[in-house]
């Protein structure tokens, strides 16, 4: 026994060394490309802004203060920063609506694909994924072309005499919502499809057989079983929606800002890097709180889930 243990130990040591070697590239990337910048952002958020951008190495709490509060220039009275709060609210609201919208459009789509014969499924999935290969800017402008005042929808509606004047759709929250749902829909369809493909459809038949109507089968059998897919899809859509930058910029035309645009503004025209840094970390905090709350409630509901 004693003679055998040293080589066994050595093998184990080597195996653990190999594991660390395999992990090393990812760890390096995480350390330098994620944790590093995050740390810099954290530090910048407590410094003083420089006159032409950048930071002056002088500690200051102003940036954090300005995230949600503002001091009147003339009489120094404190008040809530309405501009920032409304942007936060719009971001959260639009992201939630995008997530719900993606579930509403994505669920039937994924169900449709999952119920096709095996050979056809790949083709349908390809159709879902193809837009993904296209640059997000181009995809967004394609939607702009549809809904702008002289765009396809308004032109057709006016030509057919249904409306007299174009409906203002572009540069509204509605247009941002449409753009984001379109852009993020594949991120919902993919995990939903993955969980539905694994769904045993004899369970659906068993439901019908035991007197459940279509709605009851959906609610009592399909939904509880594909819930992991719904949760994964929701996270994949909600997180990037909250930090969305390109879509609100193009579809909102600069007057319907979301957090991403606000942050960009601080690092650009605003020349207030500490505020931009503080806002970034606020966004991160909102995402984390929202995710934890969501996973906790979504994991609990539904009877008999262990």
């Amino acid at each position: 026994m004693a003679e055998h243990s040293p080589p066994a130990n050595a093998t184990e040591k080597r195996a653990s060394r190999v594991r660390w070697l395999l992990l090393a590239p990812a760890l390096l990337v995480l350390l330098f490309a994620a944790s590093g910048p995050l740390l810099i952002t954290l530090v910048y958020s407590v410094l003083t802004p420089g006159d032409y951008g950048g930071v002056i190495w002088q500690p200051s709490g102003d940036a954090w203060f300005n995230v949600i509060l503002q001091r009147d220039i003339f009489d120094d009275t404190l008040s809530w920063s309405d501009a920032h709060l409304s942007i936060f609210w719009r971001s959260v609201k639009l992201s939630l609506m995008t997530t719900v919208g993606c579930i509403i459009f994505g669920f039937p789509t994924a169900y449709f694909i999952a119920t096709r014969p095996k050979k056809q499924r790949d083709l349908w999935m390809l159709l879902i994924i193809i837009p993904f290969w296209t640059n997000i800017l181009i995809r967004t402008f394609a939607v702009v072309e549809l809904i702008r005042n002289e765009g396809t929808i308004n032109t057709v509606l006016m030509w057919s005499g249904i409306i007299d004047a174009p409906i203002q759709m572009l540069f509204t929250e509605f247009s941002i919502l449409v753009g984001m749902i379109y852009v993020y829909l594949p991120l919902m369809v993919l995990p939903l499809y993955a969980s539905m493909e694994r769904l045993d459809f004899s369970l659906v038949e068993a439901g019908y057989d035991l007197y459940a109507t279509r709605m009851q089968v959906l609610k009592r059998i399909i939904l509880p079983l594909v819930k992991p897919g719904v949760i994964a899809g929701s996270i994949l859509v909600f997180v990037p929606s909250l930090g969305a930058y390109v879509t609100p910029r193009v579809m909102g035309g600069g007057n319907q800002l979301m957090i991403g645009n606000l942050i960009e503004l601080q690092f650009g025209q605003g020349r207030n890097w500490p505020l931009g840094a503080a806002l970034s970390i606020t966004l991160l905090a909102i995402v984390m709180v929202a995710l934890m709350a969501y996973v906790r409630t979504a994991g609990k509901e539904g009877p008999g889930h262990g």
Partner: protein
Amino acid sequence: MTAAISVRNLRKVYPGTPDVVALADASIDIQDNEFFTLLGPSGCGKTTLLRMIAGFEHPTSGTLTMHGEDLSDLPPYKRPVNTVFQSYALFPHMTVAQNIGFGLEMLGKPKAEIKQTVDEMMELVKMTEMADRQTGQISGGQQQRVALARALAPRPRVLLLDEPLSALDFKLRKDMQLELKRLQMETGITFIFVTHDQEEALTMSDRIAVMSAGTIRQIGGPRDIYDHPAERFVADFIGDTNFVPAEVATHKGTDADVTLSSGKVVTARMPEGEQMQGKVTLAVRPEHANISTEAEGLLPGTLSEVVYFGTDTHYHVALDDGTGFVVRRQNRPDETSGFSTGDRIGVQFAPGVGQVLRD
């Protein structure tokens, strides 16, 4: 008397190139309280027929009635029929009790009644202790019993069972066969059972429909089907059979005198309503025949092999007409046949034992 389930000229074709005919033309009347089995090899259309009765598939043509009521336009959730699925299809996100109560809940029964029925059902299938287990935490045999209880709980008029025992091991399958038969007698519900296992069919059924290639070949009681197969497929599919060439000499009703290759004449049984002439094939079960001296036997030959099976012994005979014949004899401690390999012997069977087959 109207049948519990009446199937008339039911046909199911799946469109494609070429079209797939799953069920060519089936007509059956299944009576109340009957244990009826659809038996056949895979692809014979038995599951398709069952799924049409359940409402999962729509017939291409033909009619389907239950107690005289047309079922064609009823979706599965409106048919008083429940299914035990081959894969059991238990809901993995519910407990044993929730699974069993699901049908009653969907029917909108009051909570107290559901609880009472679920308790009764768990008692019936001996699963009371497992009520709060998740379905993934119980064994295959237990899952099988939960699936049964779940399908029986809403008190369907007809219970459909799609090869429910095929996933169980041998010992458990034997137990469940008896259990199923007991449940059917206790509940008085009509069972329609689908299987490819002939032994399962013979031990449990009141009547059996033997199917192949989308058509029903023969309907009858287990004894009928085994002793008097009407055609070659049935004789071949169920049990072991010797096929003996013969020629019809005279026949009257179901009795026919046939001449064997040895020139000897024996009385055989003709399928009802058949008037076959000339060359025919006889089916003779190995255990219905016996071996004797060459002079006494109907068919002469050489004993080529003797295989001992414990309960019985198989005698393989190379007949003089070039065909083979197997005789099966039960072993007794104080008796041997007295023949050994290479001996000249004769094969014998009683009048009425040979069955003339439809081709």
